[in-house]
């Protein structure tokens, strides 16, 4: 069946054909593309990293086409569509169609009898059924859809002749559990087809070499790292407020700068406006339309909660160049290819260097032209971040992506996925799973525990017959019933959805989705803003909120969870150096100059902390006794530090401490005085027993419970329900927080609880960074300042409150006191 090895002549001819095809389209293959094709021809795997939109698709996709052309000189090969050769994994459904178009073009023009097709959650049932019989030659799919394919019998035959697996946007996948899904699937494919080549496509990261290792697992030594064309230069500027006294220190929005933003948009033909949250997207879209009603129809909105059709309409319009501006979130960070815009506006700090580069890269693709990004601060201190980001880009201090290690919830899901398909041999699978980067150190005991957990509920079979999900037959583990299989396929995937409410017009047109807790606050007749429209709540039925358009002037805007990004380590370090410049009066940039009035005030009322100093401010207000500390470590680490200090302080004597954080510092708000002298005790910043104490402090803060939501969903503890059925999950529906309570009480040794704890430490609190920060605080020279009023650094924290609670008091006492306060307030 397999043709004999092609001669050098055939290879040269194939390369010539492809080159001519490139030239016919006005291109010349880039050096990195040719390098990738050669490497593919030599049977190698690797990672190609380059900025978005410069030919990574063809760098990876042409290799197998060349091989085919070499193998099948004209006349041979016939017109029968060959079985699956190339698997293309993309994190976003939205990108699949675009990759299909690009590859289809090459396949058609070069006369290959290949079929190129997409399979994602959006693919119709009829097409999926056809694909179940025979997969196309090139299959473009998502990690979740790939796992679904693995959950059907006959997967090995379907994937057995795969030549190439491409993982697109690997930088986006590798830091997430979806990346682990990819690692596991690749390990399976390698077992079936040891000669398979694996290529990752990625943006440039701080740890590109590590990205290669994670992709290839134990076979990483043979991997090749190919660097794409050098990135363009980026110019970063800010819209500076006219006068600092008219500028809000902690205004939630930079909306006061609206007229300047409007003028900036007017000055260019096309603009992308990135915001950091979906809610801000809605707010800015409304504000821009109000400022320039004439832009109606040429101003668009794009975020991840909009219905696919709504988003596609905007993407198409962007393609066609018919838009003046699009307000968007990170939903347009990734791949989706459109002609570059003239400029990019970033509302609020980008919070990370890689993100800034990625977003800036959306503008000015013309050769020799720099990318232009204009930052709009949402509060004055964000100007520091802009100046810091500029410096970091100069120094190419780009964030690394930290790969996920040993997520047992993903393993639990995967074992069931395989069991409901062809089944698995536990011994062989253990070794296969350990060939991935994520599970390379997986202890046998943990593997066996997960297997027992999903097979028998973690109990000996004989004792309780009621739980029997996976059974062992002839040495293979398979699902005990088709019902189990059906239910499991519904829940494959790792993306956590808070219960989402779909928003539809009365005529059934779908607009998108919002979180249940937003809808819970609304009642019939209420007006809210979504998808750039003012909508009236008509009725809520079966997780669908029916709405009609409204002419009412105002309404609330939904807040979505998870919108807030912390300042990255790289950018935080750059911010500290900028602050140091400011403290020394160096006006190295327009941003620092603009900040001078604020810095002067900070120095007057308090002080600007220099390197090696820790600033602690104290303030008494009607709310209570405030302490402000400024580690400048990003909100995650600051939150962890705040919880830890609150815990340590309240251990000494019963205290109720409320916490507020931002990226620069945190506030401890206590009901009675905490003397500043406590900070002089070395024990307060001690790093001994840190993990235990952090955990003790976060137990109270319920972070574990939050983290368990995702784990419960991934491990199949929370059943998402059948689509189109009235009741979601019905009798076996339980919230993850209820499950968390039950596990804590009745099965405290459950490894998934331990994982929740570990994820809280690693992901929510960035434990290692937190530890380093604590050590730095312990060494720092303390600057203890009693304030008469909030300082410029403290004020934003007071305003931008994210409260979590820590208390050594009993819940009952606390509630009593809440009640007394409420009564007092009611009596005022």
């Amino acid at each position, binding site marked *: 069946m397999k043709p004999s090895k092609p001669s050098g002549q055939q290879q040269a001819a194939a390369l010539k054909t492809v080159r001519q095809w490139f030239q016919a389209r006005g291109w010349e293959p880039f050096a990195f593309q040719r390098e990738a094709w050669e490497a593919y021809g030599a049977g190698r795997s690797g990672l190609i990293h380059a900025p978005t939109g410069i030919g990574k698709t063809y760098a990876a996709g042409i290799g197998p086409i060349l091989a085919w052309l070499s193998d099948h000189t004209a006349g041979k090969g016939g017109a029968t569509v060959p079985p699956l050769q190339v698997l293309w994994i993309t994190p976003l459904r939205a990108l699949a169609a675009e990759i299909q178009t690009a590859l289809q073009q090459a396949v058609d023009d070069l006369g290959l009898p290949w079929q190129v097709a997409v399979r994602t959650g959006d693919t119709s049932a009829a097409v999926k059924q056809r694909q179940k019989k025979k997969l196309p030659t090139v299959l473009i799919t998502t990690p979740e859809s790939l796992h679904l394919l693995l959950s059907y019998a006959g997967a090995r035959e379907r994937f057995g002749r795969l030549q190439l697996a491409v993982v697109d946007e690997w930088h986006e996948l590798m830091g997430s559990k979806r990346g682990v899904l990819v690692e596991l699937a690749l390990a399976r494919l390698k077992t079936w087809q040891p000669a398979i080549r694996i290529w990752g496509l990625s943006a440039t990261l701080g740890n590109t070499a590590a990205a290669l290792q994670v992709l290839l697992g134990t076979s990483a030594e043979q991997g090749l790292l190919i660097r794409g064309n050098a990135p363009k230069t980026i110019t970063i500027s800010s819209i500076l407020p006219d006068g600092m006294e008219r500028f809000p220190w902690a205004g939630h929005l930079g909306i006061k700068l609206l007229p300047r933003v409007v003028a900036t948009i007017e000055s260019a033909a096309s603009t992308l406006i990135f915001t950091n949250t979906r809610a801000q997207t809605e707010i800015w879209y409304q504000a821009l339309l109000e400022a320039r009603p004439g832009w109606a129809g040429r101003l668009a909105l794009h975020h991840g909660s909009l219905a696919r059709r709504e988003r596609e309409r905007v993407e198409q319009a962007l393609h066609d160049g018919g838009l003046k501006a699009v307000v968007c979130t990170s939903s347009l960070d990734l791949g989706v290819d459109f002609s570059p815009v003239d400029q990019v506006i970033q509302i609020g700090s980008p919070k990370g260097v890689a993100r800034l580069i990625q977003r800036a890269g959306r503008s000015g693709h013309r050769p020799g032209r720099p990318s232009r990004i204009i930052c709009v601060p949402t509060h004055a201190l964000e100007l520091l971040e802009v100046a810091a980001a500029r410096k970091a880009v100069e120094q190419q201090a780009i964030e690394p992506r930290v790969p996920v290690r040993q997520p047992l919830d993903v393993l639990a899901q995967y074992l069931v996925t395989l069991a409901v398909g062809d089944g698995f041999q536990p011994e062989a699978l253990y070794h296969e799973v350990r060939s991935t980067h994520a599970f390379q150190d997986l202890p046998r005991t943990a593997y066996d525990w997960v297997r027992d957990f999903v097979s028998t509920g973690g109990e000996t079979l004989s004792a309780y017959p*009621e*739980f029997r999900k996976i059974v062992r037959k002839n040495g293979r583990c398979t699902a005990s019933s088709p019902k189990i299989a059906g239910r499991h396929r519904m829940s494959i995937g790792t993306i956590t959805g808070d219960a989402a409410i779909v928003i539809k017009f009365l005529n059934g047109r779908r607009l998108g989705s919002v979180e249940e807790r937003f809808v819970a606050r609304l009642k019939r007749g209420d007006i809210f803003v979504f998808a750039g429209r003012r909508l009236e709540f008509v009725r809520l039925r079966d997780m669908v909120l029916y709405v009609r358009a409204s002419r009412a002037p105002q309404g609330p805007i939904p807040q979505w969870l998870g919108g807030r990004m912390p300042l990255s380590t790289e950018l935080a370090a750059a911010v500290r150096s900028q602050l140091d410049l400011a403290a020394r009066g160096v006006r190295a940039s327009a941003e620092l100059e603009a900040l001078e009035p604020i810095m002067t005030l900070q120095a007057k009322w308090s002080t600007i902390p220099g390197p090696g100093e820790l600033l602690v401010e104290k303030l008494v207000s009607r709310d209570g006794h405030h302490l402000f500390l400024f580690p400048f470590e990003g909100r995650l680490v600051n939150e962890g530090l705040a919880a830890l200090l609150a815990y340590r302080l309240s251990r000494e004597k019963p205290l109720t401490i409320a916490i507020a954080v931002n990226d620069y510092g945190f506030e401890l708000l206590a009901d009675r005085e905490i003397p500043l002298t406590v900070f002089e005790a070395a024990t307060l910043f001690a790093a001994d027993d840190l993990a235990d104490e952090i955990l003790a402090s976060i137990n109270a803060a319920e972070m574990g419970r939050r983290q368990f939501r995702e784990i419960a969903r991934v491990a199949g503890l929370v059943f998402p329900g059948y689509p189109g059925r009235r009741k979601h999950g019905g009798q076996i529906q*339980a919230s993850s927080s209820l499950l968390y309570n039950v596990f804590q009480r*009745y099965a405290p040794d459950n490894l998934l609880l331990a994982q929740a704890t570990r994820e809280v430490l690693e992901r929510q609190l960035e434990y290692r960074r937190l530890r380093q920060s604590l050590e730095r605080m312990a060494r720092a020279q303390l600057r203890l300042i009693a304030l008469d009023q909030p300082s410029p650094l403290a004020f934003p924290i007071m305003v931008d409150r994210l409260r979590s609670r820590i208390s050594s008091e009993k*819940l009952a006492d606390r509630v009593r006191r809440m009640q007394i306060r409420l*009564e007092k307030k009611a009596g005022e």
Partner: protein
Amino acid sequence: MPGSKTITMENVTTHRARGQKLRLLPAKAVFWQEKNMLIVADPHFGKAQLFRERGIPVPRGTTATDLQRLTRLLADLQPASLLFLGDLTHGPVNNPERYEQLVAAWRRRHAKVRLLLVSGNHDQQAGVPAPFAFDWVGRVRQEAPFVFTHQPQDFAAGYNLAGHVHPAVAMAGWGGLKATLPCFCFGPDQGLLPAFGGFTGCQVIRPRRADRIFVIADDAVIARPAQATPGG
């Protein structure tokens, strides 16, 4: 005899409805003093087992613990009768033997107490396990001045006490602290009990102005001031 007993538990709050003394217990139960009756709603016994049978590995022990909690209440209060306000059993299980053994043993221990069940929506599907040996089962139970049902309903005949809702309220207070706590909710014509079961969730309700709310915080029942209710 009514009123003759001393309740051994502390932190018990008394609410008066239609002249009757209802003792609100932090164990999520009500003791009707005049009738010497213990009332609980929504235990959802056997729920974890149902999950396990459908392939969701929830730990065991919730139902046994809930029965022990009932035992303690019965021992402490010595009521003449125990009334369940519906959703006694969560759903039909495939392997009921162990559950039924547990219940039978529990019932033998409390053979003297009169067991009453106002059946709920879950009971329609799950059926009423025989080992409970109920003295009375029905959809509506009237004992003046109260009318007991599972789902809240309006009655001219009396004050309605019901379950079904699993009520909870969101408390917001000093310094932005927040907590969602299960509660008792007493309106002018109707009272809701919190869910008794250890493996049950709760639903945040929006109390009306006239509703009196008692939240359960650890081992205490605390009245929430009526003025603090949001909305109206």
